[in-house]
């Protein structure tokens, strides 16, 4: 389907809507509640934040945060599944898990492998060169080393890989902790010594469902386990036996995480499965002395009845010493400790709650706005970060001669808010796009996330490139992997009026278009040239822009026409080309350009193209609050062009005229007009009616009735009476 046509809803969808111009508050849908299973999409930084490694579309990528294009170090086959990568504490390597996704036919277990990629010294070079631009490349001779397989183990389900729930580095960098399963499906936490290549049992806790995490100092594990009984949370030193372990909770509350609802898990896997275990793990304080977890206040079996939860803080090493903070609201998520461990914060019902364990005080930050994601505090401790939804504007729409409705409406976007460590002086540091899986760096004031531009008029191919925002130097760096993502980076720069950068990224996207891509999406190249053409036009490169936009017009894909369609194909092709260009300009925030282009078409054409361009001009006028200009356009240009059109089929011309006749006399428009203008419109309509009477008496009478309304509103009773007599034939 053509990328633009998807947003142009056919009028049939809107039958019953009398007016095409209206405003409507756009409310976002209610959020569903319940335990969710998270597919990990985070972009981990290396321990010193000079590089990132991430999973994307079945491959593992590595890039420097100083500025560089990423390098793919592993590409899974079509049938295999790959986990998120983990940097070694000494940043000498990255490990990740891979599975072919084929469960053992006898016991249903899934075999997975851990792969080790040695990170070469060259990856850090850009720092020593003191490079700050986005275009620096690694040395041309540099090639990523091949990763090697280090162990094989078994797990219960591919979701454990996707959610990054199977393995972690020991902080000493010499061991990897991972989950394995015996042939009966009982799961264990194991330790693997990289040098000796030996396995050992890390925890005595075993169950058919298991999740674990290691303390930052590497001395302890926490394990969430569920067999036949209730879920339990255990805490103990690594490698010790059951006597040294303590069950610290028997009703650990799940923390809300995005993606798949627990209820979505296949029914045959039953309640013993591990889907909701990992969110029940607690959050370690940075110094490993505290563990914070949540406790379900009511029965865990009756989740719908839960009205609150307890926040429980356990003193590590004195597991019987727990402090409990009753909290209201939904299951919490995004539980983070401040660097020094003196505060922790979480999200519940989109409320950002900060707890001071010493005083038991609970503060709510950003209390009047819902918080979408809380990323915690930066490691230096100077800032906290959270996401809020950006503001909205009123929806407007316009009917086009083809019967399509072009809708200009707000899209979901975020503001990335950075505040002082106590929540002071919050300010938006990244906006205009939708942000996902944001996280802080390990040492510096950097944030990584995925960013997507959600259009306001046209539909765009999905694409969310990885990005790193460096607060220290106030720079954003992007890591697009495919055409849609390069285009998305282009959108970011276009929206932020950095046109040269936008052109560069669109050109990069174009260079990557292959025949296979075009086979899958025939309009791909056309779309990218459209975006680049707009960027070039905005950058003042008129000739180059015309080259791109001319290509767009010359490569319009016509929809299948009804056999009884009265449209001329060439005319329709021109209309679709114009429509793509104009609606995309508006969607990309280039409204002035759209108006200039519409005016150019209006001056150039006399029939259908002119009418459609007038519709777009009218849309812009009504959207930016110009009722007089809107009415001028409709009465002095659009209606005369429509009633005399030879290219717009009769019934669609009638619909169009009818629609805009109603629009101009809507109170929201009519009340804004001066009496002198109302008189002028009355006279113009009467004159148009006179001209139309011979060919279309019904239309002429409709125009007269419209003129009557304008005269009546202007208080011109004599003029009104005269027209009423004409209509009644007396």
């Amino acid at each position, binding site marked *: 389907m053509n990328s633009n046509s998807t947003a142009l809803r056919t009028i049939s969808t809107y039958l019953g809507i009398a007016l095409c111009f209206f405003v409507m508050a756009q409310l976002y849908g209610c959020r569903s509640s319940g335990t969710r299973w998270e597919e990990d999409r985070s972009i981990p930084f290396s321990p010193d934040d000079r590089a990132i490694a991430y999973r994307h579309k079945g491959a593992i990528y590595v890039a420097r945060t100083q500025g560089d294009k990423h390098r793919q170090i592993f590409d899974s086959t079509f049938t295999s599944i790959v986990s998120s990568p983990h940097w070694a504490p000494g940043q000498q390597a990255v490990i990740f898990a891979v599975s072919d996704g084929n469960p053992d036919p006898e016991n249903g277990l899934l075999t997975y492998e851990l792969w080790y990629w040695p990170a070469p010294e060259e990856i850090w070079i850009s720092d020593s060169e003191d490079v700050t631009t986005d275009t620096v490349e690694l040395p041309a001779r540099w090639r990523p080393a091949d990763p090697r397989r280090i162990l094989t183990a078994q797990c219960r389900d591919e979701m454990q890989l996707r959610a990054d729930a199977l393995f972690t580095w020991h902080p000493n960098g010499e061991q990897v902790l991972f989950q394995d399963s015996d042939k009966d499906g009982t799961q264990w936490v194991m330790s693997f010594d990289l040098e000796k290549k030996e396995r050992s049992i890390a925890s005595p806790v075993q169950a058919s469902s298991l999740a674990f995490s290691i303390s930052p100092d590497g001395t302890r594990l926490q394990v969430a386990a569920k067999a036949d009984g209730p879920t339990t949370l255990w805490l103990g030193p690594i490698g010790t036996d059951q006597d040294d372990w303590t069950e610290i909770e028997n009703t650990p509350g799940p923390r809300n995480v995005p993606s798949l609802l627990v209820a979505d898990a296949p029914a045959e896997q039953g309640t013993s499965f591990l889907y909701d275990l990992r969110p029940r793990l607690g959050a370690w304080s940075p110094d490993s002395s505290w563990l914070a977890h949540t406790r379900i206040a009511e029965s865990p079996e009756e989740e719908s009845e839960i009205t609150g939860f307890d926040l429980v803080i356990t003193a590590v090493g004195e597991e019987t010493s727990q402090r409990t903070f009753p909290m209201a609201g939904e299951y919490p998520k995004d539980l983070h400790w401040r660097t020094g461990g003196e505060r922790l914060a979480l999200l519940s019902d989109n409320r950002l709650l900060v707890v001071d364990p010493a005083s038991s005080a609970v503060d709510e*930050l950003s*209390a009047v706005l819902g918080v979408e994601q809380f990323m915690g505090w930066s490691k230096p401790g100077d800032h906290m970060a959270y996401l809020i939804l950006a*503001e909205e504007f*009123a929806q407007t729409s316009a009917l086009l001669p083809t019967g399509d409705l072009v809708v200009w409406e707000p899209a979901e976007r975020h503001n990335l808010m950075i505040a002082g460590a*106590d*929540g002071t002086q*919050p300010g938006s540091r990244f906006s205009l796009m939708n942000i996902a899986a944001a996280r802080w760096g390990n040492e510096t004031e950097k944030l990584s996330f995925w960013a997507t531009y959600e259009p306001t008029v046209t539909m765009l191919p999905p694409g969310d490139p990885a990005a790193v925002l460096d607060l220290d130097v106030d720079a954003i760096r992007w890591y697009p992997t495919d055409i849609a993502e390069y285009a998305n980076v282009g959108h970011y720069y276009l929206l932020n009026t950095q046109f040269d950068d936008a052109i560069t990224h669109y050109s990069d996207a174009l260079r990557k278009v292959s025949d296979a891509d075009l086979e899958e999406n025939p309009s791909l190249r056309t779309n990218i040239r459209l975006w680049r053409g707009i960027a070039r036009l905005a950058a003042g490169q008129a000739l180059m822009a015309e080259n791109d936009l001319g290509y767009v017009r010359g490569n319009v894909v016509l929809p299948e026409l009804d056999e009884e369609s009265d449209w001329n194909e060439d005319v329709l092709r021109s209309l679709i080309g114009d429509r793509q260009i104009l609606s995309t300009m508006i969607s990309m925030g280039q409204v002035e350009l759209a108006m200039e282009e519409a005016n150019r078409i209006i001056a150039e054409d006399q029939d259908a193209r002119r009418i459609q361009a007038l519709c777009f001009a009218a849309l812009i006028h009504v959207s930016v*609050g110009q009722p007089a200009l809107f009415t001028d356009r409709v009465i002095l240009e659009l209606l005369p062009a429509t009633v005399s059109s030879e290219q717009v089929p009769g019934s669609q011309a009638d619909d169009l005229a009818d629609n805009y006749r109603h629009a101009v006399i809507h109170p929201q428009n009519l009340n804004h007009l001066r009496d002198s203008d109302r008189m002028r419109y009355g006279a113009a309509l009467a004159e148009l009616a006179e001209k139309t009477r011979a060919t279309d008496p019904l239309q002429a009478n409709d125009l007269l009735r419209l003129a009557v309304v304008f005269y009546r509103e202007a208080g011109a009773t004599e003029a009104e009476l005269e027209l009423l007599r004409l209509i009644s034939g007396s």
Partner: protein
Amino acid sequence: MADLRQKKTGIITTLTVLLTLAACASGPPVADRSSEQSMDPEVIWQRADKQHSAAIQAVVQRQQLQNDYAAVIRLSRDGDLRGLAFMRLAEISLVLGEYEEAKHNLIQSLRTGLTPQHRSQALLQLADLLERHTGEQEAAVKAYRQVVIEYPASPEAQLARLRMEAIDHEQ
């Protein structure tokens, strides 16, 4: 950037003039106290008649003003300017007694990229609206507290602390 700030100042100046007109349209005339106190229908009629055209004009201008701010919100890439436009829309709604609309616009303003100075003002205005007009005392205290947390050294925070104390006393 300087041009933009000038533009903002211009918008605010225009707003002040037009808001005065809007206020005239919705409020009683203030100049003639004796006329205001009169119970004579003729005198009241004359007073109303004198203000009628200006008041009608002010309503039209108010509508245009709302259109202009809506246009700024839709078109501007400057988060502070968009936020200011929402704050002005809220101010108009407040004058007209449209408190839910005012609340909506103030919350929207906080979702933009307002500068700290404007953001603290928006928060304080929202708290005041919740306290005095929509009867949401608990929400008002939350908003006051947010002013104090986010801008502890600001004049708005000083006012917020005192207002919270006053609410506390009332309860």
